[in-house]
């Protein structure tokens, strides 16, 4: 049985390699387990985001030799955006040494992990998405919806419309239609839009598009009848280009359609072709490759043929840049934690401390080569979102162009809603609400 023997030898070799890599981890390394999705319906987002994340980790390793000499390592497990695959990858990789943080980029997977990472004391990063009330670090010590939670996004969009109309008083009597994806994700912000409509006195209509959203004729006909001043597109996947195309058909101007963070990528507008021209979308990170950190990624990482994106044209795309920003935030959290605990492999709990002190002001962001890419972040022990600013970009037919300043959402009026929800969670799960951030970091 020649084949059998060869198979056995190969298996043994694979085992040996696996063992060796486990042993090698005793050198100072910080490990990032990646629940990526490179196939399946959401592959475009997954390859861009995880590609950007890995590109940035590579940049730190190649250019700086790691974070203060601690090498960054990672391993990918394919999830296809499916929860149970995400859990499988979690269980498979969770016993690896030196895990810094988990970054699933999937609400479903994140929910399945909250119990698990809290027990295992490792941070869970849900940049731009995730469970809104996990912003409350008093109840969710290990969960970080960095930069932007769905509520802040809603407020950011309304604030942008306010500035375009020339002041909050001008919103009175205006009409906004929210076209949302018929899923839990799409419905999440319904009460927030209502709240803001009451506050600013604009007229509001929220219309659902059933999943997947490849037929929107009736929705856009009612939009045409309603004659709104703006349409907010809270879409997902194929729903976005179809919305833009249908809007063109019924004659609604694209520059009065505002997309949310999951309707803001190249993949959302290119299939709509001409109809997307003038369309505006919110983002936490500008697109484009002109920022110094992107230039360094191109030079150092792609120059060394270690780039993660197969299609180099996607460098600087929305998802890729989100991955880069995610990389910056993770690496800086490790760096901040190292300053306190020592320049060595940190425990998950120590990295959690780093995230709770992740404060990057615009000057620091500029020093990191990301000025203009994103604004700033200011995470504290009880605010795990970190007051991310948003900006708005307009599609000119071939690329996104930033058309606004950095806008701050109205965090103060959102916080009470968040605390109400997190308090309910704490009660349901018998969680003691933290009274301060000085609690001991467990080993």
């Amino acid at each position: 049985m020649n084949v059998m023997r060869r198979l056995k030898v190969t298996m043994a070799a694979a085992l040996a390699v696996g063992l060796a890599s486990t042993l090698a981890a005793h050198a100072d390394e910080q490990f990032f387990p990646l629940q990526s999705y490179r196939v399946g319906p959401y592959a475009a987002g997954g390859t861009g985001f995880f590609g950007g994340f890995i590109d940035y980790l590579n940049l730190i390793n190649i250019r700086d030799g790691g974070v203060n000499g601690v090498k960054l390592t990672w391993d990918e497990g394919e999830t296809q955006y499916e929860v149970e695959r995400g859990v499988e990858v979690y269980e498979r990789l969770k016993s690896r040494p030196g895990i810094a943080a988990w970054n699933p980029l999937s609400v479903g997977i994140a929910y399945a992990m909250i119990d698990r990472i809290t027990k295992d004391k490792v941070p869970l990063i849900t940049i731009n998405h995730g469970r809104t009330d996990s912003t409350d670090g008093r109840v969710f010590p290990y969960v970080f919806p960095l930069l932007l939670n769905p509520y802040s996004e809603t407020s950011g969009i309304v604030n942008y419309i306010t500035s375009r109309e020339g002041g909050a008083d001008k919103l009175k009597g205006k009409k906004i239609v929210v076209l949302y994806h018929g899923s839990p994700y799409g419905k999440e912000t319904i009460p927030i839009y209502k709240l803001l409509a009451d506050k600013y006195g604009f007229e509001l209509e929220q219309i659902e598009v059933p999943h997947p959203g490849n037929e929107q004729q009736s929705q856009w006909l009612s939009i045409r009848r309603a004659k709104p001043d703006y349409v907010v597109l809270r879409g997902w996947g194929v729903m976005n280009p179809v919305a833009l195309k249908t809007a063109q058909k019924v004659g609604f101007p694209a520059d009065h359609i505002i997309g949310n963070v999951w309707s803001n990528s190249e993949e959302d507008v290119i299939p709509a072709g001409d109809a997307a021209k003038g369309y505006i979308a919110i983002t936490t990170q500008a697109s484009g490759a002109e920022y110094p950190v992107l230039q360094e990624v191109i030079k150092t990482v792609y120059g060394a043929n270690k780039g993660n994106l197969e299609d180099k044209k996607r460098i600087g795309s929305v998802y890729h840049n989100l991955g880069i920003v995610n990389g910056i935030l993770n690496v800086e959290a490790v760096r901040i934690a190292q300053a306190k605990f020592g320049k060595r492999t940190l425990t998950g709990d120590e990295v959690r401390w780093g995230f709770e002190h992740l404060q990057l002001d615009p000057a620091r962001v500029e020093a990191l080569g990301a000025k203009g890419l994103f604004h700033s972040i200011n995470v504290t022990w009880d605010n795990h979102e970190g007051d991310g600013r948003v900006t708005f970009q307009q599609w000119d037919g071939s690329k996104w162009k930033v058309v606004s300043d950095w806008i701050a959402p109205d965090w103060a009026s959102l916080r009470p809603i968040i605390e109400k929800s997190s308090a309910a969670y704490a009660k349901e799960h018998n969680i003691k609400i933290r009274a301060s951030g000085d609690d001991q970091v467990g080993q």
Partner: protein
Amino acid sequence: MPALSSAKSAWFSSEALWIGLVIVAAYGIVPLAGTDYLLDAVLTPFLALSLAAVGLNVLTGYAGQVSLGSAAFLAVGAYAAYNLHLRIPALPLLVDLVLAGGVAAAIGIVFGLPSLRLRGFYLAVSTLAAQFFVQWALTKFSWFSNDNPSGVIDAPILSIGSISFTSPAERYVFSLTIVVVLTLLTLRLLRSQSGRNFIAVRDHEITAKVIGVPHLRTKLLAFAISSFLIGIAGVLWAIAYLRTVEPAGFNLDRSFQILFIIVIGGLASLRGSFIGAAFIVVFPLLLSRIGAALLGSVFDSGVLEMSQRIVIGGLIIAFLIAEPRGLIALWDRAWDAMRPVRRPVYPT
């Protein structure tokens, strides 16, 4: 059962012995498992899927009613347990579990009503209605997810009395106990008159009717029992395994997955349900490991996913053509070849 005992006692006891051995091994694996991975990422989902497959097998394998709505009943069970726990906190979890199964059974009967008129392909299409309706209802009415803004809910802590099941090993033991008890009860049911009625309705409906089998009641009973089991499997899936529930996790793909389990494992075979579930859970993991070891980086996730689909698709075609009784038939043949003993009268 005096009438049964005489001739069958020989294999009855050897069967009981085997079942006992498997159960002891299943509990005995806990201290040996070592890492959480095996328990939490392989065995617990395997148990939940096995129970769902047992449920579907009762309906499709034994009673001959094709269903493409299994995932809907998983979802009903999961959401029912969540809501019962949330809204009637006084109820112990085990009661929640049984009631959740009951709710799934009731919904199962409703969606089983078309089976009184429809057969085969047409029935399969009508069970799709269950699939789409349940998913739609759970997304549409946020009451089901306690008005949680994102619609994704987190599972209650598993506990019976003062014992709580939180670690992977504990959650595995919890699931195992539920699955063992329900499987044994199902086995008993299948060996009773109701079980024979299932087969009668499947093999020859008109004759069954002429003979006096209450065939309408039998069909609805099959739907009820099947949905009950699948509903409880849904509770295990959501609460013991994933620790979260979202409607999108119970889509048509999941229904097909369970159907594939019983086709590959073996229709009308409880053991086949377990073997099929083991195959569906373990096969992709093995394939990715072996593929990565043999082919290295060429074997990335895209290739893996594709090869997995090709292999499973091919297997289904192969089994349907060459061995409609599935893996369990191969297993029995191999076993017989090793030790020529008398097989049970009919496979279970």
